[in-house]
């Protein structure tokens, strides 16, 4: 068991983080290249880039979603993201692991705050799962990954909390650690291949939408040629 856990914290973790980071960098690079290429090919290249940047910030403003349809889901989601981002990076226990591997660390959250955010993340993850299951609209469009990724995150944070509070842990330390380590590794590997990739792609959405309707001149003619329909009447 110890060897399996060490593998998960060592080589497999390094593999997982490499997949996550390289995958995210690749996705970001492809998106930037896509934006540049789409812009270069567009017939109308006049884009109000600052307007798009402004619109990006408007869309990223969480308060925008605190009213209107599914506002409860939106609030849960915003709170969920706070802990989701802060705890893995600024939890003291994780920073010690990084120090061991990288030789340097950074400031950590106070224990009470890390605990509070972890519990909030767990509670909101459950809330989001319930909200997804309870809504006909969400259920109708949900795919396997929508459930699986949330369950993985829930398990990751729950096991993380239990590891930090062994007196509250009903399971064995080894099993909890095993689940926590491998859940984390799987989430990292899934990052560039699942909806988690929105963490890097969301800021580009408004650029993509802006360019979406910037059509390329001559596409119609080229498509007709490719399909062998040249000269045929409408």
């Amino acid at each position, binding site marked *: 068991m110890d060897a399996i856990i060490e593998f998960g914290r060592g080589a497999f973790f390094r593999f997982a983080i490499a997949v996550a980071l390289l995958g995210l960098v690749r*996705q970001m690079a*492809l*998106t930037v290249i*896509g*934006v540049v*290429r*789409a812009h270069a*090919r*567009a*017939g*109308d290249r*006049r884009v109000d880039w600052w307007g798009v940047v402004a619109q990006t910030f408007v*869309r990223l403003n969480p308060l925008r*979603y605190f009213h*209107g*349809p*599914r506002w409860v*889901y*939106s609030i849960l*989601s915003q709170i969920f993201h706070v802990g989701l981002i802060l705890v893995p990076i600024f939890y003291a226990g994780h920073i010690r692991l990084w120090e061991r591997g990288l030789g340097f660390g950074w400031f950590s959250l106070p224990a009470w705050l890390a605990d509070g955010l972890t519990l909030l993340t767990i509670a909101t993850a459950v809330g989001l799962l319930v909200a997804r299951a309870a*809504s*006909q*609209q*969400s259920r*109708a*469009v*949900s*795919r396997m990954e*929508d459930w699986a990724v949330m369950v993985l995150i829930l398990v990751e944070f729950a096991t993380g909390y239990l590891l930090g509070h062994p007196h509250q842990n009903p399971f064995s330390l080894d099993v909890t650690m095993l689940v926590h380590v491998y859940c984390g590794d799987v989430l990292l590997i899934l990052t560039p*291949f699942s*909806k988690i*990739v*929105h963490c890097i*792609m*969301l800021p*580009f*959405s*408004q650029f*993509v*939408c802006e*360019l*979406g*309707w*910037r*059509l*390329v*001149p*001559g*596409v*119609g*003619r*080229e*498509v*007709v040629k*490719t*399909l062998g*329909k040249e000269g045929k*009447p*409408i």
Partner: protein
Amino acid sequence: MATRNDASKKTDEEKAKPKKPLKPEGMLEQVPDIPVRYYQEPAPQQEKARRFLEAFAAILRHSNYGFILDHFSRMTARCGRCAVACPVYQATHLARDLPCRRSELLLRVYRRHFTPEGRARARLFNEPPLQDAEVDEMAEAFYRCTACRRCNLRCPMGIDHALITHLGRYILSEIGIVPKALHVAVREQLQGKTGNTSAIPVPALLDTLSFLEDELKERFGKEIKFPVDVEGADMVFFPAVSDYLLEPDTLMGQAAVFFATGDSWTIGTGYFDGINYGLFYSDRYLEEIIMKEINEVRRLKARRILIGECGHAARSAKFFVPTYGGESAPPVISILEYTAQAIKDGRIRLNRDAIKERVTYHDPCNIARSGWIIDQPRFILRSFIRDYVDMTPHGRENYCCGGGGGTVSVDEIRKFRTGIGGRRKAEQLRATGAHYVVAPCANCKKQLREIVEDHGLDMEVVGLHDLILKAIVL
């Protein structure tokens, strides 16, 4: 359902009672679904899926859509926020009318057939390729959508479902699946003798213009002209060509405005149709029709394109003339912008006592969703209408009339358009208590008139320049 007669029996007191404000968003009472079945021209029925994929591949190869789909297919949160924004879903409550579910029909084809991960996954899990039945499902789904883009306002990921609807329809059109009503009109516009969607020959156009000039002379006692083929004019006018058949008051109102301002404009007999169904279903026709407008402006050595009261005609010109017109693409102006500016500059006088009835305004999606034309028509109306009310919501958040995306031209789906897509709009109209609903869009006007008829509303649907015609002082 209340009949028109029942509605008109309301007392004046009841009519004057302020209406309870409608909740701006939320589900309507569920109605039985109405399938969308449109007439199509005969097209090969075999191997639909294979031909669909071929057309999809060809379009991806030559356009920017691949990059867009790649982004959208990874980003969708599947949260369902788009759902309640959609007027169709609000009425049917059906999963298939969820904007993100509709988009998923195309996105899953893209992932499965055009991405390495999708192809690998398909091999791993033995996923079947696209089937003919799925093509049929898309053929209906993409015409249940009016492409109003209201869902885009709510999507936290900013996904433009109307763009996916447009692409889906484009692919389908390349394999012969498109409503006959749209396709026949485009054929006449691009390859027919008359060169316009209403098949109006030039002599008939000139007759109509002459008749309208006589009407204007009778009304105002002045020689108000519709200039034709004036070389060097500032603006070449492109209304929805159906206005020449169906909307004499709109046209006369516009001519009266130009008489008041004295600015130079003209109608070109080489091409005079602002309608562009390519915006609804085909990039190929979108470009060809835009080029006809540009070429006519160049033929007449004019400076600008002036679009009449038509939402999609205005949007297709405004946003796609620069795309296809190159460096010297003529600027585009909407008649609504023109008239609003003329009023601001004090060049038009309007009688504030001409219209006593309550007036409301319907924002055509194609000009309002982007924020381009929202304030201008309201400025115009408030300058001479004493009793003006807005619908809730309005402006960028407006609801589609239910006939958007070209669906209004498909008569055989009227029951769907007015009973489902237009239900929310019917409730909005009812809530205003207005007599006139101004809709500066040929398509919206047709749809709203059908809504008024089918829902028994005691209202009159008019163009904005129809009211200007009643109020202008020359």
